[in-house]
């Protein structure tokens, strides 16, 4: 099997809110390590998972470690596809303006800064899932 054939579509399905449980943080740790393997990576934020991307997170008062900055750094790890589900945002009264700005530099276009967050609806996300090789759920 050649290296090219080994390239798989890895999909991280994030459905849980941050801080209440550790899944969001430890999901990110997999994504960061996984980035070194040069697979075709995308993340999805569905249901309470969209809360992970909320702007202005400040965990200091709880004693827990904040980790929202890691999402902003994903572009540096060439993780550039963050699918956020519209319906999940709407149910929670959120719009994309409530989320952190997350961008990457496109080396093919003179390192222009481009948004990593891609809004999709349920049916689009269903098709994206059906196109994956490996689904990791958190």
């Amino acid at each position, binding site marked *: 099997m050649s290296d090219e054939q080994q390239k798989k579509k890895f999909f991280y399905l994030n459905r849980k809110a941050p*801080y*209440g*449980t*550790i899944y969001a943080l430890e999901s990110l740790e997999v994504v960061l390590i996984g980035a070194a393997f040069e697979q075709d990576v995308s993340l999805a934020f569905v249901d309470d998972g969209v809360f992970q991307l909320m702007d202005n997170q400040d965990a200091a008062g*709880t*004693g*827990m*470690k904040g980790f929202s900055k890691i999402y902003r750094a994903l572009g540096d790890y060439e993780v550039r596809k963050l699918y956020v589900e519209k319906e999940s945002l709407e149910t929670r009264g959120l719009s994309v303006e409530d989320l952190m700005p997350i961008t990457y530099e496109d080396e093919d276009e003179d390192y222009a800064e481009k948004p990593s967050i891609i809004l999709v609806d349920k049916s689009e996300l269903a098709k994206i899932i059906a196109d994956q090789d490996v689904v990791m759920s958190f």
Partner: protein
Amino acid sequence: MFEFGSPREGLVHSTSEVALRFSIQINEGPYTHQASDTAYQFTKAALEKGHEIFRVFFYHDGVNNGTRYTVPPQDDRNLQKLWTELAEKHKLDLVVCIAAAQRRGILDANEAKRQGKDGDNIAPGFRISGLGQLIEAGIQADRLIVFGD
């Protein structure tokens, strides 16, 4: 026991608050759920306000707060150490449920010997005891507060 005479910094706008005896139940392990963090902050705040903590009882996965083998990342809080230090400072009674601990692999020296295990992992300031300690905590305290999932 400390009684509140006059309003102090940090007190809530409660007019009736007098020193009470609390018991705390923690049902989840550290890091995985926020329960241990919230319980720690609550316990600390209660002590700072002059309340008494009769007992902190670790049940279900909560027993995993009591292992000295944890090594969290250096920039993160160490919940086991926080509990150990709080217990030392305020002479807290930190009780790990024996039945829950057996299922989850938390041992003190006695239990290790009794079960034929080659080592133990209980953290300083924690002790292993029976579920009766939880019932007693409910009986003896003015309030039992449960933190869990």
